[in-house]
């Protein structure tokens, strides 16, 4: 009675829970990256992103206005301002004027300084310094205060990457350049692999099994092995570094997986259709174009997604085969790495760049994702 179709098993809940758990596990770092992309460098290094979402009590030090801004009121020299001029306001709990006693005074308390001047910080963040003599020096008095401040986010990182004139030109150039690399590097291997997969799946010729074994074997060869020999070869035959070279390299590195995936799919197509076509007098080319290709669309699409994502995110192959010292060729990944700075400490840029460069692959993925699962499962589940 328990196994009647339509009856929900108790395990469904376990499945749902574990799926939810996995999704959260996978999304967690992405969330952190996303939150970080809206924070400044100083915020990132001083507190974790999970603290950015809630009001926090922070110890803050700022400099008051410099002595050059003092005004004379009733014979006293006065400097006024607000500690919240350059940051979001909050509630001040206590304050101080020395790094040794940052919580010495209550808001509103008037304090006498060493040089005879007085200073006070009010609850709303305004401060007032008074002195009978002129204030000297070039830097303002340091004010330490503890305040509970609401979450603070900024769009500056995105603005810096997309609209700052130092970057926007390079970024748009890199964007088109990446497309120039990615689209042919996705189309060419699919074309070649589709032909090869058909031949390996449906044409009878001696040594077919060994060829298939070789293709599978190539899957485990790391591409790093081929970098220098292949670049040398490109230089020798006159291709050098450039788009043609990077297309060929991506094609070569992508082919084993493409052929393997497509062949497995095509082998699973019903034999009857193909034999019927043969009996009716169709040539192999006709069978391939009119029957196999339309039927293999899910597999083609799923490989296209793979190859597109891989070439879009690739830095290594582009560095070796495309980017030369002329500075005329670049890709998004390279542009982003450059923005990280000479010593690579600009995390806020990294987080922002990750989301900007993710936009296109995500669009491609959602446009084609319904084919992905179908194409991957085809051949394994019959």
């Amino acid at each position, binding site marked *: 009675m328990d196994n009647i179709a339509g009856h929900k098993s108790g395990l469904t809940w376990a499945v749902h829970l574990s799926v939810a758990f996995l999704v959260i596990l996978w999304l967690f770092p992405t969330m952190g990256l996303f939150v970080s992309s809206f924070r400044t460098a100083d915020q990132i290094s*001083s507190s974790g992103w999970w603290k950015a979402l809630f009001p926090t009590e922070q110890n803050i030090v700022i400099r008051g206005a410099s002595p050059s801004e003092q005004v004379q009121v009733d014979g006293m020299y006065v400097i006024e301002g607000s500690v919240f001029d350059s940051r979001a306001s909050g509630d001040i709990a206590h304050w101080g004027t020395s790094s040794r006693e940052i919580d010495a005074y209550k808001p509103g308390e008037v304090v006498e300084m060493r040089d005879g001047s007085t200073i006070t910080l009010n609850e709303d963040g305004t401060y007032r310094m008074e002195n009978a003599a002129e204030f000297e020096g070039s830097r303002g008095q340091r004010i330490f205060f503890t305040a509970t401040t609401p979450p603070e986010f900024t769009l500056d990182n995105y603005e810096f990457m997309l609209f700052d004139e130092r970057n926007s030109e390079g970024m748009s*150039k890199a964007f088109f350049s990446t497309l120039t690399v990615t689209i042919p590097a996705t189309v060419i291997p699919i074309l070649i692999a589709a032909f090869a997969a058909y031949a390996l799946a449906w044409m009878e010729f001696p040594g077919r099994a060994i060829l298939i074994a070789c293709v599978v074997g190539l899957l485990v060869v790391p591409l790093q092995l081929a970098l220098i020999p292949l670049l040398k070869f490109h230089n020798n035959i006159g291709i050098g570094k450039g788009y043609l070279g990077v297309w060929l390299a991506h094609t070569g590195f992508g082919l084993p997986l493409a052929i393997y995936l497509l062949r497995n799919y095509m082998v699973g197509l019903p034999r009857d259709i193909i034999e019927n076509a043969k009996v009716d007098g169709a040539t192999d080319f006709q069978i391939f174009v009119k029957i196999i290709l339309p039927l293999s669309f899910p597999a083609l699409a799923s490989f296209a997604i793979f190859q597109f994502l891989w070439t879009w995110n690739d830095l290594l192959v582009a*560095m070796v085969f495309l980017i030369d*010292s002329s500075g005329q060729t670049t890709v998004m990944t390279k542009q982003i790495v450059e923005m990280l700075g000479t010593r690579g*400490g600009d995390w806020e840029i990294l987080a922002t760049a990750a989301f900007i460069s993710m936009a296109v692959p995500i669009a491609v993925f959602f446009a084609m994702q319904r084919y992905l699962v179908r194409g991957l499962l085809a051949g394994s589940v019959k």
Partner: protein
Amino acid sequence: MKFHLLASVAGLALVAGAANAELKFPVGEGPFSWDSYTAWAESAPDLSGQTVTVSGPWLNPEDGFFRDVLAYFEEATGAKAVYTGSDGFEQQIVIDAEAGSAPNIAVFPQPGLAAVLAAKGQMTPLGDDMRQWVADNYAAGQSWVDLGTYPDQNGDPQFYGFFYNVNLKSLVWYSPDNFDDAGYELPGTMEELKALTEQIAADGEVPWCIGLGSGAATGWPATDWVEDMMLRTQPPEVYDQWVSNEMPFNDERVIEAIEEYGWFARNDAFVSGGSGAVSSTDFRDSPKGLFTSPPQCYLHRQASFATAFFPEDVVPGEDADFFYLPGFAEKDLGNPVLGGGTVLAITDPTPGAEALMEFLTLPIASEVFMNQSGFLAPHKGVNLDAYRDEILRKQGEILLDATTFRFDGSDLMPAAVGAGTFWTGMVDYTGGKDAKAVADDIQRSWDALK
């Protein structure tokens, strides 16, 4: 059709990218040495239509500053000079040189890497004139000549590269305001520095911020510490023997230097977060502790480029200052200068490349860079007024007054040691391993290379 369209879009993008470079500072204005530039420009070869390519490790924002320098070369010769930066420069230059697609000029962050390429015959010697020029015009000139001289593929020593963009190690950064608040005095000797460290700890505060984290290069800040301690406990000749491994790494004297570093880093009361946090703190984050409220620490030893990692509102020279890591009064070893830097060398000779190398020896080539960034020039001919701020000027003076200059030792050691076991060994040592055991391990890895 689709392909055609794409190719033309890419073409358009490329044309748009090749905008005309403008001169950052108008000729004749500002604290720059224009005379030598205009004199050179008049006799400079006409290189119209030629392109000179330069590759190096500088990225944003230094790459922009270097392009500003190149603009003056373009103006003088009509050539096009292109700089490309890469964060994986060390790997890329090896691949490119090996495959025959190297840039005209390479900017090496480590002399050791340049020596490797020289030994394979992939670089072009600069000749005796240039060697003489460096010896005459750089402070502690012979030290710089030696650092740019490597054996070629036949084993004959040749002069290959000169240094451009130098940084000064062994600076101790502090916040003058925090020192005022606490009433601390700047130490003049290592003994005083140790006394100050103990005093700060006794006051219930934390004296030092030390961070060794640096991704795959974690540990290098500690190698700088040990090199500094080496130069302060032993004469420079011993330092040279250590770097070339004539003296084994597990020598008593090296272990003593490692333990001097341990005196600071392995005492929980002396470092922010305790000694356990030293290895895991990123070196880029560690200086920020000087400026927090309340301060997490009072002292931070880092090279001249530390200012790049200060919080944005910190003004170097006002909110932050440095003193030179002092020597032991009892040792009387003077004030040796430890530094690092990038070396320029020709990897694909053309007339344009040679002209550019010549241009880069002019004071103006250093001045335009140092006016915008933490760039220090060992060139005696540069106008010190061109330094961006007082702090850099003070550092520039230290560099020019140097009688002995020693290069960052870990950059001179073979990569497997200087960028490998020395780094990891220092992480182990900081984590509590015995200094002798660490030194033994490093020496064993060096022996394995021989």
